């Protein structure tokens, strides 16, 4: 990997990492919105909490996905390379 390539990948990782914050927040709200809609649809009151929880988990899952990918990119060995593909 040449110096320029490395710099490029650092910039790319930075931009990818910048998406984490908004993803975390919007996943939570999307979960709540879906739950709220289903509550209205089925005339229940607990589904919004279930889907809010799922939204939070989905947000953290996205976070883990990006973190795993970035960790995989930094490693040098073949194992790390395989890891970067796995997401």
């Amino acid at each position: 990997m040449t110096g320029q390539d490395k710099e490029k990948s650092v910039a790319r990782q930075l931009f990818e990492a910048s998406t984490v914050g908004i993803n975390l927040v919007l996943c939570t709200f999307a979960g709540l919105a879906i739950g709220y809609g289903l509550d209205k649809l089925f005339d229940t009151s607990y589904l919004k909490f279930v889907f809010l929880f799922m939204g939070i988990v989905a947000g953290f899952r996205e976070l883990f996905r990006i973190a795993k990918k970035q960790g995989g990119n930094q490693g040098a060995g073949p194992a790390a390379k395989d890891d970067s593909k796995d997401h």
Partner: protein
Amino acid sequence: METPNLLHSLLPMFPPYITYSWLAMLILISVAAVVRTRLSLVPSGVQNLMEVFCDFFLSTSKASIGSHYGEKFYPLLGTIFLYILVCNIFGLIPGFESPTSNINMTASMALPVFLIYQYYGIKIHGISYIKHFVGPIRSVAAIPFMIFMFILEVIGHLVRPVTLSVRLFGNMMAKHLLLIILGILAPWILPVAILGLGTLISFIQAYVFMLLTALYLAGAVEEAH
């Protein structure tokens, strides 16, 4: 304070974000058409710039999506990048308005991206595209976990077009508001600094939109693990 708006005074029946998006399309198409008529083996002038852009799109696309599908999708990525870049830069010109500071505009770009990558995911993998959604463990005993993972993935996928559109819209809108407010409060020095920052943000946001599109496409066309 009502800022003077060039195209809106010429075509008052259309909202400004529509007319400026037409202007962006017109600029991009006419430049491309002019360059196309005088292609030469030894590039010079605008052709040079276009070749650098194309090279950049192709390398980004191949690095993110892989060499096979990278070539297939790089016109899409290039169009998105150039169009958003021109739209963003309109916001820096006095009397112009950037179409991307309207959420209808950004959503109308993010939604096709969402539909395209889902379409190619289904087209390439067929019914086994659902494996992308059910998580790493696949067995009869793990069906409740698979349903749980499926809902998580669906939420994650539904959020993607929202994040794409809100990120671009938010950045452009924030820059716009900051310029207006600082223009009123401290009209001489600070807006210049914000304009510099705005130029940087215009490029970065166009690149981020393209990069995320590439990543979503890559996630859809690759094999599920």
